[in-house]
Each structure stands twice: as structure tokens, then as C-alpha cells.
């Protein structure tokens, strides 16, 4: 949905992605208008599969120009792709594809907690978060809580982003809403559905943009505009990870 909103707002020149849509309804209308009609502006689309995006970020995270893969062979995604080329297996096996690195200028990662140095604990859904943080030139960590360094150090295996990769750390509870954060926030499905419906027309999208972006001067106003959502979505149950002893 965030992809679609940025595209519909005319802020995007190029999309590198495996899937652009809305979990509520499949297609993203803003993306479709930009792609099909060039409205509000034409975008360049670099189509991927999930794994080729994952490998492109992983290649950058590993400091490599590319990673080989067998995925996509025989399909159209990889045909004439600017970032994917056939390569031989130097050991004589079947041919592969090479996926070139994607090195983002900035990665913005939301985690449960981080210390002031940007050492970040993340749990639950990982996807490509870690690869993105390693691959990016700059990484901004937003978090539910900035915690004392002892909290992070109590569980170094939970630190998915070491602080020296973090450019800035921002304490912003609920910063991933309406998406979920394990142990902190449930997904709010209604905004996905509402955005899906209203963004059907350019006028609808503009109304959404005014209501949720342009007319809200700051984060505080945004949170107020969400009404009871923050109360309604906050996770109050506790299902704690089993104890892990790090005593030496």
C-alpha cells in the first residue's frame, strides 16, 4: 500500500519490486494509473520475483556485484532484464542467472526496540529487513522503544542490525501502523480496505492524500486523526519467548 501511495502522489520515478498492490484487494490503483496511463507521471518498472529482489539485496549485503540463482528461468521476468543476466556455472553444471546487487540509498526499518547506538532487536516477521539494512548506504531505524543498552546486550542473537550500520535511530511507537508489529500492534485492516476503495479514482486518492498527509501538520495530529485505533490495536496480551540464559 505504501508503494501505491508514493506512486499515486507522484513522488516515484522508478519501482524495483516483486509485487505492488494492496493486501486488501490485489491491484493498487495508483500503481495501475501510473503504469497504464502515466498518471500523475510515468514510472519505470523493474519487475522481480520475491527471490530475485531478495538476492539483489543479499548481494549488496554481501558486498558482491551479483548472486547466482536458478529462479525465474523459462519465464519473462528475467528476459531482457536490466539487472539479470545468464551466467555459466564455472564448475560445468547447468546455466544460472546472475542477479545484480541493489544498493538502496536509504533503508528505513521499524523494529521493536533499539539502544541509543542503533543496535536493533527485531522479532516476528523478518522478510528482507536484515538484508535491506545491511545493503543500504544509510539505515534509519525506527523503533517502538529506545531501551537501555543492557536490554540489547542481554540477547545479542536478537540484534539483527548492529549499531554501526545505523545512521539514525528514532523512537516512534506505532510507527509501522496500520501494519502490525509482533507483540506491540495488530494489523488494522480497515485502512487498507478504505484506501483500496478511495484510491480507485485520482480524485479519491487526492482526498486521501489531503486527509492523511497534507492536512496533518505533524505526527501528533496524525495519531489524533487515527482516533481510537492506537488504543484498539495495541497488543495487551503477553506471550513471552521462553527464557534463554546467556550467563557465561
Amino acid at each position: 500500500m505504501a508503494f501505491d501511495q508514493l506512486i499515486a502522489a507522484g513522488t516515484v520515478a522508478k519501482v524495483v519490486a516483486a509485487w505492488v498492490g494492496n493486501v486488501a484487494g490485489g491491484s493498487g490503483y495508483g500503481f495501475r494509473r501510473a503504469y497504464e496511463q502515466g498518471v500523475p507521471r510515468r514510472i519505470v518498472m523493474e519487475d522481480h520475483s520475491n527471490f530475485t529482489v531478495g538476492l539483489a539485496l543479499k548481494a549488496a549485503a554481501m558486498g558482491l556485484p551479483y548472486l547466482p540463482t536458478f529462479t525465474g528461468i523459462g519465464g519473462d521476468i528475467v528476459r531482457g532484464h536490466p539487472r539479470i543476466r545468464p551466467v555459466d556455472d564455472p564448475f560445468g553444471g547447468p546455466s544460472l542467472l546472475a542477479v545484480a546487487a541493489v544498493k538502496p540509498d536509504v533503508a528505513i526499518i521499524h523494529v521493536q526496540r533499539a539502544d541509543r547506538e542503533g543496535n536493533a532487536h527485531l522479532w516476528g516477521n523478518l522478510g528482507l529487513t536484515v538484508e535491506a539494512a545491511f545493503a543500504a548506504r544509510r539505515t534509519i531505524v525506527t523503533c517502538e522503544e529506545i531501551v537501555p543498552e543492557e536490554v540489547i546486550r542481554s540477547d545479542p542473537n536478537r540484534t539483527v542490525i548492529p549499531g554501526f550500520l545505523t545512521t539514525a535511530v528514532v523512537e516512534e511507537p506505532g510507527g509501522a501502523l496500520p501494519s502490525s508489529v509482533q507483540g506491540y500492534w495488530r494489523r488494522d485492516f480497515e485502512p487498507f480496505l478504505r484506501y483500496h476503495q478511495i484510491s480507485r479514482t485520482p480524485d479519491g486518492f487526492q482526498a486521501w492524500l489531503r486527509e492523511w498527509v497534507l492536512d496533518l501538520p505533524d505526527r501528533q495530529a496524525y495519531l489524533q486523526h487515527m482516533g481510537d485505533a492506537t488504543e484498539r490495536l495495541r497488543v495487551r496480551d503477553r506471550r513471552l519467548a521462553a527464557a534463554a540464559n546467556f550467563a557465561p
Partner: protein
Amino acid sequence: MIATYTRRELMVVAAGREIRDGEVVFVGMRLPLLGFGLAKATHAPNAVGLFENGVIRDRPAEAFIYTMGDPPNIAGAVACLGLNDVMSLLQQGRVDVGFIGGAEIDPLGNLNTTRTSGSGSLVRLPGSGGGGDIASLAGRTVLIMEHEPRRFRERVDYVTSPGHFPGRRRGGPATLITTLGVFDLTGGRVQAVTLHPGVTPEQVRQATGFELSIDEGIPATMAPSADELAYIRKADPDGFWTGDTMKGG
């Protein structure tokens, strides 16, 4: 008493039957997710489910989920790794069967979820997601489709998820489950296996934009049992995915 059920409930049952006990399954959302849960609850208690975001479950989520990253899909999972980790297992050949949906299909089982001009003007679809990867790398794939003439095309505009092609390393489309029937794709052409109760061969032919073979006296898809329906309705209580109008799109 014969339970009434929707087409999509029948498709869920058919999807579940494609999973054998002990298999490693690349699940996905919507109907296959329900089919996986159903298979676990019935004939395949030892199946394991992989989700492309990194989650590995050996039982369905306790609560309804909209996306595979939703907290109920993580709570109680046996493992929660990264996308590249489960894709690596897929690329290793450790996944027996994967499910994929598509907007368009051709007789070789090629699926298009990227873009089409089939209806005259260009329509952009959301893209591959993990579909292209599952199609390339799973031991076999089960395809799930709306059975409409504009979607069943002699040649798809764009091959997002490759079907059968010369030189394929492994896998390929095995079964196609549609709103009208169940079809075998292993021979590189579409052969009807069962038609859903009440569906005629003629209906299927008219809804298919290419040649397909339907034997005379083809059996009907086995209807869901009361237990199967009970399972599905507990997992999707509002009919979000299995109602007559699939709210999930």
C-alpha cells in the same frame, strides 16, 4: 443430509487433497492456506508449511490472517526465518509442492500475474510476488484460477510463473484447480480430472480459450464432507476467502 457449500470451499478441499502426508508445502495465502490447514487436520497431519516471508508452521495460525506477516501467523510458528532462507530451501529442492494463483493461464501452465492486454487495453497486475519462484523451484506446483475465457488463453501476454518448457530442471505445474474443475497439467496440456458437481464439459470448453481434453463420463469433484466444511468455516468464519464473492479479490 448434503451440506451446501460454495465453489471456493470446494476448491479449498481440492487444494488440500493435493498435499500428501509428510510433505513440505510452500503455502501462500487465500485458498491454499485454508487447504493446507484442512490437509493438516485430515489426511496430512505431518505436512509442514513454508511461507515466503520466512515463516514455517506445522499447524495453521490460531486466528484469521490477512497477510502471512500478520502476528497470528508468527505466534506459534516452529520457525520464523527470513525470505531468502525459505527461498533457499525452495531452491535446494526441499519443497515438495507449492501453490500459485494467476490472472491468466495457457495450456503449458504458464501463469501471468504481471500485465495483460487481453481485454484490449493494457492492465497492470500486481506482479510475481513469490509465484515465479515457486513455479521455478518447487517439486511440483498446484495452480488455482478463476475459470473464465479471458483468463484461459492460448498464449499468455507475459509469463510471470513459468509452466512446462524444454530444459526445465525440475518441477512444473502438476494440477490446476479452477472454479469449474480439477485438471492435470503434467503432460504439458490440460486434461480434465474432475468437474465440479453440476458443471458440464460444454461449460468448461466455453470458459476455456484453448483446447483441453475432457474424457467422456468424467467424474465429479468429490464434495466437501461435513467435517471439511466445518473446518473451513471455522478458519474463514466470515467467508472472506471462501464466500461466493471472494472479498480477498
